[in-house]
């Protein structure tokens, strides 16, 4: 597993850099519109985390891809609108969704619904099998936790004591 200290510091580094960039001047969005600051920061956070992770993970690749495409508003949120070069995001793994586990004791619909939801939540989660989705989710959660921790420290640092 990645060294969490390393992840944390890389993320902090990149994020701070982005923050300073945002604060110093207007960040140019590819669409020409200026984003609200908080939105820029949010995107910066995800982008920084994805950069810190690199391209090792499917979700980070996905995030970077989205940002590159410039859908700033969606980069941190929605996934479904993106036409992705990978396996059709449009009709995201329908086969995967329909594929239930045979021995599943729980009734399938709610679990399926939850799987869909999870796929939507985790970037890049649409085109993969469920067990891979779970692995990506685990890493994603770990990175989100560091992200939140760093951002909180920064925010706490800057708020008046």
């Amino acid at each position, binding site marked *: 597993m990645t060294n969490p200290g390393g992840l944390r510091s890389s993320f902090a580094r990149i994020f701070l850099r982005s923050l300073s960039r945002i604060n110093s001047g207007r960040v140019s969005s590819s669409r020409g519109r200026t984003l609200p600051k908080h939105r820029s920061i949010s995107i910066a956070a995800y982008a920084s985390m994805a950069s810190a992770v690199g391209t090792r993970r499917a979700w980070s690749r996905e995030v970077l891809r989205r940002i590159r495409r410039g859908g700033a508003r969606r980069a941190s949120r929605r996934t479904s609108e993106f036409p992705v070069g990978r396996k059709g995001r449009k009709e995201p793994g329908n086969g995967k969704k329909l594929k239930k586990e045979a021995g599943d004791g729980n009734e399938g619909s709610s679990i399926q619904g939850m799987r869909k939801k999870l796929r939507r939540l985790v970037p890049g989660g649409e085109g993969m099998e469920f067990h891979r989705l779970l692995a990506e989710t685990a890493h994603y959660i770990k990175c989100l936790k560091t992200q939140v921790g760093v*951002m909180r420290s920064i*925010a706490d640092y800057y708020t008046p004591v």
Partner: protein
Amino acid sequence: MENNFILAAAGIQPQSMPDMQSWQCPPPDPMFHPNGWDSPAFNATVPSPPGSDPRYVCNDSALIRELVGKLGVFGGDPEEIAGSSCYSTPLGSPPNFGPKTNLAEFAADPGFVERAAKFSCFGSRSFNGRSGGVEFPRGQFAAARDVKLGRVSSSPSLNGLGVGPRLGIIEVGGSLRPLERIDSMELPEEESSVIEPVPSLETGTRGSGESNPRKRKGAANRGKANAAKGTGNSSAKRCKSDEGEDGMKKEGNVVDEEAGEKKNKDEGKQPEPPKDYIHVRARRGQATDSHSLAERVRREKISERMKLLQDLVPGCNKVTGKALMLDEIINYVQSLQRQVEFLSMKLASVNTSLDLADSLMSKDHRHHHQMYTPPQMYEGEAPPPPPSSSNDLHRLNPHRQLDSHFAPPSDLQYGGGGGVGYSGGGGGDDLHTIVQMGLGQSSLQHTTTTTTSSSFDPQLFHY
């Protein structure tokens, strides 16, 4: 005559049964003692000499019933077997040959003696096996013997144990063969020779034998099914869910299966033995076609990952079951994402100092911070940086895609220029150390604040 023939087949001298003519076909049930296998019991249940029992009129029918009952027992009524030292008909009654003479006559037949000996062995062992309450690992024999044993061993009680009869047979070891032989060859012969001429009497014997064929069939089915599974599973997969009987062990998978089987109920939590993904084994009682094997591999992977997730997501430990856990995970991811949004809004409102942000960077970027040390003292607008340094920064920045979106090169310099001062290298990876150092540095600098709130630390903004 016929009667004599039958009696001879039974090993009973006709002349020793003078009164058999007087026997009737006894009512099936009341006289049948399933437990009457002990020889004393047998003796006890052997009713009074023929003449004294008016019920027994049919000598041949009684004899046949006795034989069939014997054979039936042979075929496996373990209740009757258990603890018996000799097999006797379940129906202590009918064979009313006079107690001693009967035994003597039976004993006289060498075949019976042999069978009695083997059977008693079997019976006692199976009894021991049963009382031992075992489940275990004689798997190697179990599957192999299943088919053969299917006919022999089968009572619901032993089958419930799952391995009792087999164990019994196995422990008998060498005597298994003779038993099998007896089972396979002698019984039918006896049955055919004895029963056929008197088909009508089978109804009489049903009372005792009826449960036996059923049990035998049940055991046979199970034995065959198990054997089929056992042989079919050349390479199969280990799996957490157990579809078959819990006590059954697969042939060849002795120790591991045992450990696995005992834990197989708990889907979410069992420790998995090291698995070789290429070679997987199916548990007994599970399908072995490739689809289900692959399915099982998938399921195992999924449950493994769910376990990992359980550790990550707080509060997931108590939750078991996929649905609830998925729900928890989804909620957690959503809450984390909401926190990021919230914090970004907070940062947007709070964080307005360029140089501070830059000064918080780690020592890894010290070298290109140093490029900016000259402009350390500038205030307000930072002068456009020399192109070289911007190039350096670009080169050093591995994340170009960010640059294209977030800042033109010049903006980068703003951030870099403002930040400066940070040459000492912070305290490693500790963010707070970095922050402290940044704070120390920045207090000397003028910061341009695009939006300032009065609540800021005045130290940051003094000129």
